[in-house]
């Protein structure tokens, strides 16, 4: 829009009429680059002034951020527990190995012969024989109950044949036919598909996963409400500024901007602090978990958030902050009288 009344401005002695300014006044508001710079300055100003405001009211900010950080770390904690549980079953997934527990009166030699017979079966890929002594040794090493077993006069552990069916044999029906055949042989006391246990474990874990998702969702909604309420209070405190800005022609986008940045900062800082809470908790738990893991064969290592997950955690909490404040602002700014 052209403004024809620029001759109204009195000449300002403090500003020299340099070339650039003549170009700017030729078109009201300056050229495109100038406007772009102004827009960038507005964002930069909103970004830092909103952080400044949080710092200026440390007590309120710390309380809000502490609550949010705890909520976010709880949600992430569920995630970490589930991803660690999944690790437990990860290396079991593809195997449909069977265990044949032999009767107590079967000798090692007999067991060896049986293993060789089974190995000839066209459906079997490999057979591994675990003698009583080996089983005892394994039990003593890995279970952590080594001394308990010494209380028995004789070795109570049975001979076990670990049978790995051919990969082609994947469907459950064929597996159970094979299992039934092993079960019927006189030397076998008890036969089971290990996969069954894996399946049970997996379904428990998927239940835990679902539970974790539900909890994280609820905590996320909680975070959204807390940030929304914080921004609403901030909006209330700065009511004059909002009204005056509106009177001098501010768009809703202009008025929203600093508050959106406030939401962003609250979310971002809470996310970072939540990460630290988790990291410290992990350090505290790590030693105990590693000890326990060693006792069970040492295959389990406590997993923490990797780089991508850390990034997602902070990005998600920041966007929850922006989303929470946006929702409140959309609702509150709809009507000038409401603010």
């Amino acid at each position, binding site marked *: 829009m052209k403004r024809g009344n620029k001759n109204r401005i009195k000449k*300002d002695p403090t500003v020299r009429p340099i070339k650039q*300014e003549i170009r*700017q006044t030729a078109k009201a*508001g*300056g050229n495109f680059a100038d*406007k772009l710079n*102004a827009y960038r300055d507005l964002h930069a100003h909103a970004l830092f002034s909103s952080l400044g405001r949080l710092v200026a009211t440390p007590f309120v900010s710390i309380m809000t951020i502490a609550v949010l950080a705890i909520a976010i770390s709880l949600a992430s904690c569920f995630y970490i527990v589930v991803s660690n549980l999944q690790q437990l079953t990860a290396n079991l997934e593809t195997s449909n190995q069977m265990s044949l527990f032999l009767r107590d009166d079967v000798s090692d030699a007999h067991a060896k012969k049986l293993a060789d017979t089974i190995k000839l079966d066209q459906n079997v890929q490999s057979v591994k024989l675990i003698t009583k002594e080996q089983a005892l040794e394994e039990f003593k090493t890995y279970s952590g109950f080594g001394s308990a077993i010494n209380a028995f006069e004789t070795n109570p552990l049975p001979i076990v044949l670990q049978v790995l069916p051919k990969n082609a044999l994947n469907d459950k029906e064929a597996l159970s036919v094979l299992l039934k055949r092993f079960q019927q042989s006189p030397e076998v006391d008890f036969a089971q598909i290990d996969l069954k246990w894996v399946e049970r474990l997996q379904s428990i874990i998927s239940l835990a996963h679902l539970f974790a998702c539900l909890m994280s969702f609820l905590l996320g909604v909680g975070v959204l409400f807390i940030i929304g309420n914080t921004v609403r209070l901030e909006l209330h405190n700065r009511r004059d500024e909002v009204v005056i800005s509106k009177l001098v*022609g*501010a768009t809703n986008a202009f008025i929203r901007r600093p508050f959106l940045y406030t939401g962003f900062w609250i979310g971002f800082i809470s996310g970072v602090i939540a990460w630290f809470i988790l990291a410290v908790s992990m350090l505290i738990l790590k030693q105990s978990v590693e000890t326990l893991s060693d006792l069970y064969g040492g295959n389990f290592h406590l997993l923490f958030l990797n780089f991508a997950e850390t990034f997602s955690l902070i990005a998600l909490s920041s966007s929850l902050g922006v989303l929470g404040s946006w929702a409140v602002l959309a609702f509150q700014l709809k009507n000038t009288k409401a603010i």
Partner: protein
Amino acid sequence: MINFVNVSKRYPETGDVLRNISFHLQRGEMAFLTGHSGAGKSTLLRLIAVMERSSRGQIFLEGQDLSLTKESQLPYIRRKMGFIYQDYKLLQDRTVFDNVALPLVIAGYGHHEVSRRVRAALDKVSLTGKEKKYPFALSGGEQQRVGIARAVVNKPPIIIADEPTGNLDPELSEEIMHLFGQFQRVGVSILIASHDISLITQLNHRVLKLDHGQLISS
């Protein structure tokens, strides 16, 4: 410039505040809006600022029907007007410079342009050198002049003033009216709500008189 055609405003709680108001404020015209308290002066000004909408009738601003204007367009309408208030409505936690710069920052002006125009506006109201002061450190008259600088910094074609001299002594009031006179001479339309009868009669401008929501003389 501003054209009211049979405008009424009704609140559900209090009934009609304005009834059948019609008047036309020309480009470069200065007019006083007067009347007893509760006659509807503030409501009329709020209608011009589109802080509220009329219940009946039409208000035209530069030929544009305000009752048909979309909510999203209102900020751009308000940028054509400079508002001046009895209580100044300055941001207490911002410097004089920042207060005056606000309309320009909102309109997206670049840093140099903002700086140049703010200095020019402050010079116009004789406040050069007070850029870095905060409003509370200024006298009432100075604060009102900051308010005026903010209203004119964007060079709007219309100035709306609500009791601009309400808190000022006669000498300062006259000074401010003198400023308005200067703006009027360069083609700005000015509407001043006031019940300062002596000031109004002294200046011999058009007077719109409201009585219980009706325009009894214009």
